[in-house]
């Protein structure tokens, strides 16, 4: 690793670690930003690197969310009573129960979506192009609708995640706790994907994107790699979902868990905005999108969806290469500095 690159990573890391103390009021906002970065990064595994434009990755996010909260509650209390709003009882987690439940919940929230991805992968990843896109869109929406019909998890009522236990610090501690979990998850996801893209696995994903039939003809069993790619996405998305559910505190089937119309689309948009198929693109896209959204959204007050719609059209139609692509075109001489060396090499080799 070159010297100044090390400095950049160090700076970014320092920023991430220091942010909750420099901007205490924005802790939660920045935590959401890291979640969005994870969404964009994991989407890019399919959409950018593999060329499979998925609208349904939100499925894993929602499953993770429900699994995590469900385990947290179900480990200690009857879940059905918790979710049925008719119950007059209130349950409170003790701190040790809370953290035990949270840990087990997160572990399962990563494993179960990964298993789901493995199970449905063979059927669904065999679809190509827009059939895949629409199929995954259907999958995401169907999941939300079905979750809205299951009594055990609160059906359309939604369910509340366990509240922060009493007696171990105030809300500041809570938001710091979740902030660092989000940040760590984001960093781990990033490092893992950076490593993965450098291996043969990353090359094969790109080969699938560039010409799947040829890759198959070369003797690569593409389906296996497609499924593994999806499992990776599902794994990280599931944890992100579990965190998100606890952070928001209330889980609603179609608006928070399987929020295809918001997060499901945002993840695609952020990756494209930043530049899909690059490692940094989704990160930059997510940060830029979040800042744009939080910074300017409130000024539109009522018009923001018109702005969002217009933004999507403009990005997609006029800047399909994203910020990274735009930078690449505008400053080709600085290109070597901007893009990750290994990533670039991998792309050049493939071309």
């Amino acid at each position, binding site marked *: 690793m070159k010297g100044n690159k090390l400095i950049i990573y160090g700076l970014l890391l320092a920023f991430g670690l220091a942010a909750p103390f420099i901007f205490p009021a924005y802790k939660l906002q920045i935590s959401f930003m890291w979640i969005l970065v994870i969404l964009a990064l994991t989407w890019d595994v399919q959409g950018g690197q593999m060329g499979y434009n998925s609208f349904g990755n939100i499925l894993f996010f929602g499953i993770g969310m429900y699994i995590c909260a469900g385990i947290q509650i179900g480990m200690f209390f009857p879940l059905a009573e918790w979710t049925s709003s008719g119950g007059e009882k209130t349950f409170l987690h003790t701190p040790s129960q809370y953290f035990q439940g949270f840990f087990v919940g997160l572990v399962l929230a990563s494993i179960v979506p990964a298993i789901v991805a493995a199970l449905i992968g063979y059927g*669904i990843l065999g679809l190509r192009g827009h*059939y895949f896109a629409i199929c995954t869109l259907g999958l995401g929406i*169907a999941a939300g609708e079905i979750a809205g019909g299951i009594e055990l998890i609160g059906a359309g009522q939604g369910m509340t995640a366990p509240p922060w236990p009493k007696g171990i610090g105030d809300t500041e501690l809570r938001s710091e706790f979740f902030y660092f979990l989000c940040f760590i998850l984001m960093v781990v996801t990033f490092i893992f994907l950076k490593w993965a893209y450098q291996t043969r696995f990353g090359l094969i994903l790109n080969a699938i994107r560039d010409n799947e039939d040829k890759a198959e003809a070369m003797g690569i069993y593409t389906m296996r790699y497609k499924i593994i790619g999806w499992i990776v996405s599902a794994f990280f998305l599931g944890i992100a979902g579990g965190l998100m559910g606890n952070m928001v505190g209330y889980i609603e089937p179609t608006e928070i868990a399987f929020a295809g119309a918001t997060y499901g689309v945002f993840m695609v948009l952020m990756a494209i905005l930043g530049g899909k198929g690059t490692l940094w693109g989704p990160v930059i896209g997510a940060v830029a999108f979040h800042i744009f959204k939080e910074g300017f959204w409130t000024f539109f007050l009522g018009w923001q969806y018109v702005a969002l719609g217009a933004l999507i059209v403009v990005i997609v139609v006029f800047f399909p290469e994203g910020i990274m692509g735009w930078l690449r075109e505008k400053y080709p001489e600085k290109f070597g500095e901007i893009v990750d060396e290994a990533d670039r090499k991998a792309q050049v080799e493939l071309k």
Partner: protein
Amino acid sequence: MVQASLDGILLGVLFALIAYGMALQWGVMNIINIAQGELVIMGGYIAYFMYTAGIHPALGIIVSPIIMYFVGWFLYKTVIYKVVDRDLFISILATFGISILTQQLMNFIFGADVVVAQSNFGTTMLFDNSVTLPNAKIFSALVSIIFAIALVMYMKKSRLGRAIRATAQNSRAAKILGVDTEKVYAATFGINAALCGVAGSLIAITFTLHPYVGLPYTVRSFMIVIVAGLGNLPGVALSGMGLGVFEEFADYILGTEFRIGSVFMLLVFILVYRRFKLSRKREYLK
């Protein structure tokens, strides 16, 4: 059961009309229009406005396609022309952007109120009052069929229809032979929007209107087109009715709460089934 089947068929004919528009633009321009449902709702609002102005909303089937044709044409000239030759995914995302944009604009213009237009068509009773068929539904099914037939005739006989079919088969060759493909594309998109307008005004008199209910219509029409295949009009009509019946039965058997969920699951199953069928075929050809 009889009730459910009849309801389903009448509903399905309406879906088929929307799906036909979808098949048309998909076949000709290679575009998947996520904003299809929003065009339908927009057409519905036109009929609703005629109703509030004191005109019978059923006349919307004449007025709203005319207006919607120009809306479609306008959309083509501003955005769609940019995405015609591009990756399908780009068109999906771009039209998705259009879809939320129009949803929100409709919300501003018409309000988020749920509205209905009264046709006062009355109801037909069958089998000693055990099965009821609202005349509005029968009317809408008839209108859908008439429009579909008229469109097929138009495609076969008229000059523009022939140009559209030629472009669908091979746009480059059509261009070489002197077809102004730009114009054809604009017209196709306009015709699609006009069909949506008809369907929308029928929905205004049979169901309810709301700026945010477009997406299920888009997905249904997409599903119908996939099942039927592009350019297979009888197939579109049949699979439209099949979907309508499926929905009504899903209501009965699974409960209404799973209706939309089951539609989307059906979509997933059809696609996956299709994939396995196709891949088997591929191996066979080897």
